[in-house]
């Protein structure tokens, strides 16, 4: 057991993936000597050499496009996109090439590429450094999309993503990079919690029933847990589910919970319209219609470009907005 930040847990996970498979490569802007702007690749170039961990020219389309070729050649590239807002130059390669090549080839070609993207706000950054573009990728068949929310998951999920034979978009909530947790790095991947599965991260204590289900992922998992804690202090229990996998979605635990609580609230930083919350609300309505006491509510970013940093606390789904939604659901 060691206490690791999420950044360090990802670093350890990448290290282990590099050790386990000589075909694993790490490529991206400033991932070498600098160790990436969030230090996720710190020390990896020193230990695994400039052939396997390398700085690319400054061109995201190039990073992903050449990763396709490297994958065709038998490598398992792990691409780092420096910030969420800079993945768009690579969007064409991801959507038109990475997502479709396996399908086009009739299953003959596999592209085991991982595209890591630090995402989300709350760090006081300038424009283009706080976005939540996950829905664009979830909407693209052929891509798998996951997001870790804590150091333990980060350590295992990154290794599992690298082992996956489909392309995986791996979202890392940058506001959680420096959160610490005990991580047991001695286990094996086979015993790790499955990558494409959601997880109930807070239940009502035995003998008490929860009044609502909070559904979150990435940066909002902590917000949801915090809200549940505050609600519990006030005598109300909330269940919290960390989706972990955004495509495919694993909603069985969500349905199970909503059938008990009758209320569901989805929490994400991304803007509301066309976001993950809409998909989840739709599916929960289809599956749990007769159990619902209120419509599925969404606590999300508003439908505006990510605002200047001095307004981000107003934009982001905060603890208060989550509790407000719980109130609204109960009073429905």
């Amino acid at each position, binding site marked *: 057991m060691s206490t690791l930040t999420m950044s360090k847990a990802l670093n350890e996970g990448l290290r282990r993936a590099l050790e386990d498979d000589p075909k694993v490569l790490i490529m991206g802007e400033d991932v070498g000597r600098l160790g990436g702007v969030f230090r996720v690749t710190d020390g990896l170039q020193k230990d695994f050499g400039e052939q396997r961990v390398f700085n690319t020219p400054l*061109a995201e*389309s190039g990073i992903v496009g050449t990763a396709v070729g490297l994958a065709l050649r038998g490598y398992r590239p792990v691409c780092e996109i420096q910030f969420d807002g800079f993945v768009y*130059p690579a969007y064409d390669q991801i959507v038109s090439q990475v997502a479709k090549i396996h399908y086009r080839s009739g299953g003959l070609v596999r592209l085991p590429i991982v595209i890591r993207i630090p995402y989300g706000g709350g760090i006081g950054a300038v424009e283009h450094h706080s976005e939540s573009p996950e829905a664009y990728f979830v909407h693209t068949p052929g891509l798998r999309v996951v997001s870790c929310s804590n150091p333990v998951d980060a350590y295992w999920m990154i290794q599992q993503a690298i082992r996956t034979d489909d392309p995986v978009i791996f979202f890392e909530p940058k506001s959680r990079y420096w959160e610490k947790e005990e991580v047991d790095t001695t286990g094996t991947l086979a015993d790790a919690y499955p990558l494409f599965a959601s997880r109930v991260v807070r239940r009502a204590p035995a003998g008490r029933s929860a009044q609502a289900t909070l559904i979150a992922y990435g940066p909002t998992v902590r917000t949801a847990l915090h809200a549940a804690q505050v609600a519990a202090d006030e005598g109300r229990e909330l269940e919290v589910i960390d989706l972990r996998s955004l495509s495919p979605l694993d909603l069985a635990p969500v349905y199970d919970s909503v059938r008990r609580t009758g209320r569901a609230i989805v929490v994400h930083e991304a803007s509301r319209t066309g976001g993950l919350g809409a998909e989840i609300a739709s599916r929960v309505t289809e599956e749990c219609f007769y159990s619902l006491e209120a419509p599925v509510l969404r606590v999300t970013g508003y439908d505006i470009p990510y605002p200047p940093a*001095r307004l981000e606390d107003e934009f982001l789904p905060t603890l208060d907005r989550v509790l407000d939604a719980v109130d609204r659901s109960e009073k429905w």
Partner: protein
Amino acid sequence: MLDGQAALGGALDPPTAPASAGHETGEPEFVQLLTPDGKRLTHPEYDVEFTDDELRDLYRDMVVVRRLDAEGTALQRQGELALWASLSGQEAAQVGSGRALRPQDMVFPTYREHGVLYCRGIDPIKPFVLFRGVAHGGIDPNEHKFNMYTIVVGAQTLHATGYAMGVALDGKVGGDDGEAVLAYFGDGASSQGDVNESFVWASVFQAPIVFFCQNNQYAISTPVERQTRRALVHRASGFGFPGVRVDGNDVLACYAVTRRALDEARHGQGPYLIEACTYRMGPHTTSDDPTRYRTASEVETWQGRDPILRLRRHLESRGLADDAFFDEVAADAARQAVELRERVLAMPDPQPMDMFNHVYVEGSPDLEAQREEFARYLAAFASEGPAMAAEQTGGGRHR
């Protein structure tokens, strides 16, 4: 006078760079009009006669922009800015090119062109609005013919090219009063598809644009050798337009080549590429730690090529300025910095409801509903008063 062709020597091969076997031997020469020790050179193609006043003004500009920039770094360190991207070391490239502009010319900056902004007569507080997190733009591109900063690396070169195509469509090229466009970008940006596409567009449409690359040797931690095997100036010929390499720490040479390139563009000769060889003396931004990827001795080497010092030496050696002048310039810069600092500290925060403004020209009913929802939410907190007092979250409203 000496001949103004100087070799850049090993300057482009920082000791931290990976060995690059295919790298060209003998980098191309660059235009230099002022040596690091302040000697004035001439150049057969690129030269300008500067009056004594002009030389003193260029000196003052560089001192002021360096001082204002230092205030940016200081304000960030004191928690007053989220970030600052320093221009330190690039004063000559920015002041030289910025002063070469004519009033009708249009500028497309990156996020580091505070010096060009200053030369354009724009209130130097503008970038601070951005880096304090108060607004994203804060600049009216048409008022001073200076576009908003662009953070997405390279994107502005295409905007600049399209703007230049518009200038040509308007028939505003061909004479001394023709308009030219000046697009800034970095050595790192030179790898972006957008930048290469802008070269193609500018070339085939004969757009009146000058691409000004500040090759400051790094894109964050990545040395220029990871972006190119040959000097960046060579890119121009492949795309079919002229290019020139200039000592980016020589304000006179930067002025001369930019003046010439802009004048060719405004007269309808099409695009021009300028590669200004300079050095980013500080970190990439205040978030960066350059000790991880470059050596102190490399930084020291470039300190010896300081753009301000060399002009000062020149002014001194020709008796064009005395201590009283230099003291007065320093005091002027300090006074502007103090004033700027006070205004930054007094800058009002945006109002929460402001974030819903200007998403669309004509509004949207969906967004209007969200604005009202948010207003109700804020009002609920206001009416519930102290019961909602701050407890654990930064937002300060949690019950």
